[in-house]
């Protein structure tokens, strides 16, 4: 079914997410302690923090891939359609899988080696065009640059069209054009009511785009509007705290 990327239903908002006293322990190591904050529907919410602070673990807890305790609740007026952009795509670079093959693999039930099904072609074409990969669709994944692979991950996250988009450092490897493309895409998605939760390091961009920001380093250090909470002192404390 053709799913327009730009769709006029800009008023229906995506789900909201509540983290309520979430803890995560792996082995003897405490990864997250007493995490509580909310992601408002239809907003862009950024997660920042120092390396090893538990950001990816928190994101994966939301995906149900961690043995967390506490509650993570997703509230939505309708069914939740989740899109996820992982940090990296780990694969054997010598495998002869093209961009088209990859998109066929994620979108359709028919085996990817039979090619893209006609019914999925328009939406795949649009997604690839949106992330600027149309000219690279016959390229093998191993021959793409890191940034191009990131764009590909973004493209797959848009099919089916999500109302909750989760991204783990999507800017990694993207050049200036790529960064601009992503920013435009995020604003477009926000305009369509998609709730976006993403891990990011560039505080300047966070300030520019995000509606709310939460800083995590095992526990929540601060959470609120970027303009208010992202003062120099707080950032310094957050990234030097252990």
């Amino acid at each position: 079914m053709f799913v327009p990327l730009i769709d006029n239903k800009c008023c229906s908002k995506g789900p909201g997410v509540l983290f309520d006293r979430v803890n995560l322990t792996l082995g003897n190591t405490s990864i997250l302690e007493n995490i509580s904050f909310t992601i408002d529907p239809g907003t862009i919410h950024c997660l920042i923090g120092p390396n090893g602070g538990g950001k990816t673990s928190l994101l994966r807890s939301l995906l149900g891939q961690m043995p967390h305790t506490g509650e993570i609740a997703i509230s939505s007026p309708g069914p939740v359609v989740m899109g996820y952009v992982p940090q990296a795509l780990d694969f054997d670079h010598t495998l002869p899988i093209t961009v088209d093959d990859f998109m066929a693999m994620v979108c359709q039930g028919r085996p990817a080696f039979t090619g893209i099904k006609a019914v999925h072609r328009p939406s795949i074409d649009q997604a690839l065009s949106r992330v600027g990969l149309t000219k690279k669709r016959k390229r093998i994944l191993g021959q793409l640059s890191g940034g191009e692979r990131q764009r590909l991950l973004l493209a797959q996250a848009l099919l089916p069209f999500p109302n909750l988009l989760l991204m783990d450092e999507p800017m990694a490897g993207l050049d200036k054009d790529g960064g601009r493309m992503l920013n435009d895409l995020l604003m477009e998605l926000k305009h369509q009511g998609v709730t976006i939760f993403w891990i990011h390091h560039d505080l300047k961009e966070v300030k520019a785009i995000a509606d709310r920001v939460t800083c995590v380093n095992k526990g929540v250090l601060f959470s609120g509007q970027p303009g208010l909470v992202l003062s120099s002192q707080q950032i310094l404390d957050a990234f030097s705290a252990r």
Partner: protein
Amino acid sequence: MEQQIVKPLSTRSEVICLAMMVVVVVMISGGVIAGRIRPNDEKVLKPHQLSAFRDLNSLEQGTFNDLYAAAMEINELHGTGDEEWPSLATLEDECMPPFVKDRVWKKRGRLAWEHRVPWSGTRHVALYLGVPRDAGSFGCFFLVMIHDHAGKRPGTETVEHPPCEIWHHDDVNVAFPEIVTDEALMVKGWKEVVAYKGEEEVQRLKGDGRS
């Protein structure tokens, strides 16, 4: 407004499913294996019979095998009844074991053979008794050849009695049997020796015998 709680990752279901799968596989495999195991296809021996493979020692087995082969030859020599039963001298001249007195004969207890052809009407019967002269773990062998020629028309042979039987007795002083019915021999302590054939071994190994 729908609310869904994100379930934390749990490996419990993996453990349970795997355990169930193991049980299912073991049960199915066990059931199929139990169904495919064939009961031992070796013949069930009657009390008056003994197995050539299991119950005779190696020297006696040798004598039995030779006697079995000789019985076939004797059967052929006798033919349709026009021929006489071969005498011991004939069999020795033909160098037919176990009748020929060679080194093997000496090793196997130096059996002294006696041959009788009792008259029994239309049934041709020949008896060959071998008694060991050497002391040791050798028993006596008694070859019974029976051909029933009554009412035979060519192509319609119905032999009620197998053409030959080989009997064994542990007592070397046993007398030459006068009556050679199964019951009479059994009463005197003779035991019929039953051969273990190649087809039976193949069936035992291969199960249903169809490879």
